[in-house]
């Protein structure tokens, strides 16, 4: 009995998810309604309503056919799948090629006992999993067992780490993004307005106006309003992040990691240690000052979607973080710096933030001089724009003091900054895709270089370290032709 004959359907809930792919067909009845409304009136529209009904039936039929043509079969050897109505595709992903096997249980699907299974390999696009489908809870558990019994993932749990609630709170505190919160808030208000009517929208806007007026102490009300939106957006994003990472738990088996957590969407990932690209200890300027560390993983199929877990150790002290890391991933050892930039390289680090730090205050003064009636708002805007510029300068100064490269056995530790974050990245030699040692004309005089490492991943991920000695850099990465 071959795999095709043993294949089964995904959960019928999938039909609803397939509906949106054919929603574009609704443009036909919409266009028809528009043109008949302009020319023939209601009677003309009604006489052609059969076409609208036909389009809706076609959408539902296509979604059903798509579900009917999707089948899968999984055992310890791998997962067989087939899909497509007109353009059919059948494939087999061997277990040893599956990097991440994830089961997601969003809260709106839990009453239906439906979960989403995600299977990912190093191939194809980094933005989307290789295979995604909906199954019942029981079926998801069975599929997970198959992946767990594969020789490359099986093994008893060697250790387990469950972070404290404060660690999770700090993680959400420092990683929440105001923009996402604002988008969520705007969507919520607009949808509630449609359901509850105009009165709700008026109530929300009146409350917002009153709060802006109350908070406008020494600053213009419009600026207070903008600050209120940002704070509210951040607060919503914070709550959302907290619910996504609550109950975080990481278990280490002989060859793999099992990571689970989340309240809104319960997530469970199975990762192979060999498929982890690198470990990233990430800090912002604030957490650097408070000496708090959080550890992220870069692995194929992990941390892909916006509500995925990507931190395995949320904010902790250095000692605790290193201790946890040595238990969960003892292979990834952080070594002290061997190569670091010289003192004269400080200008290379601060040149990028230097210009905004000078030009924004200068521009503010000039604008205030030209438009004296707008002085208060210009000054406030100038101040708000200067804050991220000087913050960036602070990050680059810390980067200058801490950046460098080291190596222990075949594990490299890179320390560098990217935008507003300071990274300490650890990876194995076999995860390096490309070593680019770059020397500009100005660096030739003292034989310095920049190093850009691309690590092995679905997409491109680079690590850039500035102004190191060229010869030792060539030797540490075996990029010397005489090696």
């Amino acid at each position, binding site marked *: 009995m071959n795999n095709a004959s043993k294949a089964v359907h995904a959960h019928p809930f999938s039909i609803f998810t397939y509906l949106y792919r054919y929603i574009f067909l609704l443009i036909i009845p919409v266009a028809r309604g528009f043109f008949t409304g302009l020319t023939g009136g209601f009677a003309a529209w009604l006489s052609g309503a059969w076409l609208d009904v036909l389009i809706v039936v076609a959408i539902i039929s296509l979604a059903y056919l798509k579900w009917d043509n999707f089948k899968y079969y999984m055992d310890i050897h791998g997962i067989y799948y087939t899909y497509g109505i007109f353009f059919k595709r059948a494939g087999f992903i061997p277990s040893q090629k599956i990097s991440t096997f994830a089961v997601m249980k969003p809260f709106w699907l839990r009453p239906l006992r439906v979960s989403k299974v995600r299977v990912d390999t190093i191939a194809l696009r980094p933005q989307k999993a290789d295979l995604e489908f909906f199954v019942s809870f029981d079926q998801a558990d069975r599929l997970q067992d198959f992946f767990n019994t594969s020789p490359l993932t099986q093994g008893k749990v060697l250790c387990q780490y469950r972070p404290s609630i404060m660690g999770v709170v700090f993680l959400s505190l420092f990683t929440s993004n105001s923009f996402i919160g604002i988008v969520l808030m705007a969507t919520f208000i607009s949808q509630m307005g449609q359901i509850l009517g105009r009165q709700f929208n008026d109530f929300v806007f009146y409350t917002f106006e009153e709060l802006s007026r109350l908070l406008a102490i020494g600053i213009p009300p419009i600026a207070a309003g903008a600050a209120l939106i940002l704070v509210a957006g951040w607060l919503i994003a914070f709550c959302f992040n907290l619910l996504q990472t609550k109950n975080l738990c990481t278990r280490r088996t002989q060859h793999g990691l099992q990571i689970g957590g989340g309240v809104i969407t319960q997530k469970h990932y199975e990762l192979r240690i060999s498929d982890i690209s690198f470990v990233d200890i990430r800090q912002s300027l604030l957490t650097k000052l408070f000496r708090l560390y959080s550890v992220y993983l870069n692995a194929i199929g992990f941390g892909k979607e916006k509500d995925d877990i990507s931190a395995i150790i949320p904010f902790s002290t250095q000692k605790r973080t290193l201790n946890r890391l040595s238990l969960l991933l003892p292979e990834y050892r952080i070594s002290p710096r061997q190569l670091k930039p010289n003192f004269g390289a400080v200008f290379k680090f601060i040149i990028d933030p230097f210009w905004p730090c000078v030009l924004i205050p200068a521009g503010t003064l000039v604008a205030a001089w030209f438009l004296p009636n707008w002085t208060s708002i210009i000054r406030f805007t100038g101040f708000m724009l200067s804050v991220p510029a000087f913050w960036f300068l602070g990050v680059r100064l810390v980067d200058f003091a801490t950046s460098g490269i080291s190596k222990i056995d075949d594990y490299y530790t890179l320390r560098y900054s990217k935008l507003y974050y300071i990274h300490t990245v650890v990876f194995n030699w076999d995860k390096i895709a490309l*070593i*680019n040692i770059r020397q*500009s004309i100005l660096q*030739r005089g003292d034989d310095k270089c920049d190093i850009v490492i691309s690590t*092995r991943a679905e997409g491109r991920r680079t690590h850039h370290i500035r102004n190191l000695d060229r010869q030792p850099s060539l030797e540490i990465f075996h*990029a010397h*032709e005489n090696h």
Partner: protein
Amino acid sequence: MTLKKPNHKILSIWRIRLLGMSVIPSFFTAYFSAWAFHWVWKVWTVLWVGGFLYLYIFYYPIKYKKLSYTFNSRCFILNCGVIYTRVKALPLQNIQYAAVISTPLERLFGLRSLAVMCAGASVYVPGLDAQDALQLQDILTPGKFSGGDPL
């Protein structure tokens, strides 16, 4: 390890391509020559002629001079760059495959280019003799090389 240079004919190919690309700006210069005393015409002409001469006299010769490749026990190494001098090292175990590429102009001169693909990066080696390109492709195909000097 033997450092190998691409065939010098690649410099001619780059220059011929440059001549081909300069046809359009030279056409505009000639077409609007009645406006020769206008500053826009002067700036346009100076810019494209200056760019052409910079590429023809300095950029491509320096690019060829710095271009070379070799192997060591762990990596395929490509030396390249003009303004930035670059050493690009590809760990041999992460190479997925290599593809031989040729344009009509390259085929006319008997040359090929090689694109070496890894998960997360790729490197392009121009100006190889046809035989060298095939040999290099064979060497860089996973499982066929495990260190030493294949050149």
